[in-house]
């Protein structure tokens, strides 16, 4: 194909037909595919993973992914760590929405231990998880804009992500890998500053989001790049194990927050946005609308924040406040036992799922009563849906493939675990 085109070009340029090269034998016209390496370290892959694409000119014929570049063996490491030390591993999976991972892990352990969490702690968790979803979707949609050539939106909304990180910092002291919350509740109550910052965000964020949507939603250039690009039918998406915004963009209204409510999600009123064709535009629109719904949830949670303690009455599992440890014998004993990992975990196996930034984040925990999990498996949504990528970009151009990848929100940390 390529060589034929080239020949035509030569012919037109000189005005007469060029003689076939005969010094090294006749020219062979073979329909040859080009192998193109997209990644592992390419700015458009947003993480370290490789795609080996077979290209016919501009069109993608087939693709093969190589992943595992940042595999850190979290499941193996978790088998040597007491439960509370595993929280820091979960941070590093989907690092764009680490609080969701943290809370998901805490809830898994709480389910195993049978600890009931007070309403206030549950509401605080909901607020933090929804803030995490905001920052996750902001990054995904912002970067989709960058990949289609619109840098403005990305820079503009990054200020809001910064403000969300300020709230994390106020709540737990860290920004990216948050290690937020504890088994049994939150490590501290929401401070007045945190509440003020959340309320300010609720006022400011909708305006920013509207402006961001105005930049993109009906933008001709943007729509030409994303509409009908990388569509997937609901049937194929379910077969591939899609979850989260990518599945909802294909028209299936599956959301763990509604199907299996955890942490009092049943108390809040919110809608699940769904798309129709499952293409890049639908994924973009679903994420934008989910941000609005997240704001609704945060608004309801902050307005109706219940009074009461921010941790469960389970001293054998919840790390006591430090000032108690200095004065109180029991607190000292529990502190020592928890830090040394000597909590009495029951024998059992638990599967707990939360709605992560990009889908159903599941924790399959098997405890044999020891101080560490016998086996811990993470169901990482990215890992499962990323395998559909070659099918989604087959027959499209390279620039489409880049756009599809950013709209799928593949996070390398979660992909490899």
């Amino acid at each position: 194909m390529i060589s034929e085109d080239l020949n035509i070009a030569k012919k037109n340029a000189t005005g007469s037909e060029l003689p076939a090269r005969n010094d090294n034998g006749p020219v062979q016209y073979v329909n040859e595919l080009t192998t193109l390496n997209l990644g592992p370290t390419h700015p458009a892959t947003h993480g370290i993973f490789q795609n080996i694409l077979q290209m016919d000119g501009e069109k993608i014929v087939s693709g093969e992914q190589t992943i595992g570049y940042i595999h850190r063996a979290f499941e193996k490491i978790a088998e040597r760590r007491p439960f509370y030390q595993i929280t820091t591993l979960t941070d590093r999976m989907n690092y764009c929405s680490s609080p969701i991972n943290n809370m998901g892990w805490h809830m898994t352990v709480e389910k195993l231990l049978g600890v009931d969490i007070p309403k206030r702690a549950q509401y605080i968790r909901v607020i933090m998880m929804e803030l995490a979803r905001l920052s996750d979707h902001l990054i995904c949609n912002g970067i989709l804009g960058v990949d289609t050539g619109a840098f403005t939106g990305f820079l503009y909304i990054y200020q809001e992500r910064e403000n969300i990180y300020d709230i994390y910092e106020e709540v737990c002291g860290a920004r990216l890998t948050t290690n937020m919350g504890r088994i049994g509740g939150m490590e501290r109550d929401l401070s007045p500053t945190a509440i003020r910052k959340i309320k300010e965000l609720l006022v400011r964020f909708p305006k920013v989001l509207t402006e961001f949507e105005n930049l993109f939603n009906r933008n001709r250039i943007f729509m030409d790049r994303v509409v009908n690009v990388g569509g997937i039918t609901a049937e194929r998406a379910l077969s591939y194990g899609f979850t989260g915004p990518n599945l909802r963009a294909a028209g299936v209204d599956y959301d763990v927050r509604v199907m299996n409510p955890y942490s009092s999600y049943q108390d809040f009123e919110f809608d699940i946005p769904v798309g129709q064709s499952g293409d890049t535009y639908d994924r973009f629109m679903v994420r934008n609308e989910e941000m609005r719904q997240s704001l609704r949830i945060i608004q309801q949670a902050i307005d109706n924040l219940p009074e009461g303690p921010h941790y469960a009455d389970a001293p054998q599992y919840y790390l006591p406040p430090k000032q108690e440890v200095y004065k109180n014998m029991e607190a000292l004993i529990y502190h020592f036992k928890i830090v040394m990992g000597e909590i009495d975990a029951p024998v059992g196996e638990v599967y707990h799922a939360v709605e992560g930034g990009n889908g159903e984040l599941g924790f399959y925990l098997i405890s044999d009563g020891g101080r560490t999990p016998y086996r811990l498996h993470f169901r990482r949504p990215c890992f499962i849906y990323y395998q559909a990528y070659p099918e989604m970009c087959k027959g499209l151009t390279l620039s489409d493939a880049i756009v599809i990848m950013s709209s799928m929100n593949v996070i390398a940390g979660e992909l490899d675990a």
Partner: protein
Amino acid sequence: MLTNEEVAQTIINQFGETVSDFDDPYDLLTFSTDRDHIVSVISYLKEHPVYKVGFLTDITAVHYPDSTGKEFCVVYHLHSLTNNFRLRIKVYLQADDVHVPTVIPLFAGANWMERETFDLFGIIFDGHPDLRRILNMEEMDYHPMLKQFPLEDDTRKDKIDALFGR
């Protein structure tokens, strides 16, 4: 709303002796079957007109080196989105015969889950079109999640299990 007992009874009626160990830890229906029946059990549940267990949540494995004859356990998590019903199926395997049929014809997403399980545990999924390592490098000649591979350096005397537990 389906109950665990109801679904369990239907599965027992259909498969009789080949399904066993029914349990519902933390309200999740769990049972075991053998590798000759795993595909038929899953496809029966998938095709069932009422249950419609059409979503494969996860495939993973567990290594139990001390339970002779049942050293490996392949765990399937399934989900019926229509009925909002989850269940877990286990297939126990012997250490010297770690073959189990693939479920890719039923769920395209099983591909990488099975590759990951092969990579980490060495479970061989018969019929898998491309059973290669996925997270670790090709040159690796062992399966790292097996319990005989300790995470800590054996020569470290300050981190021995006798003092600090596992």
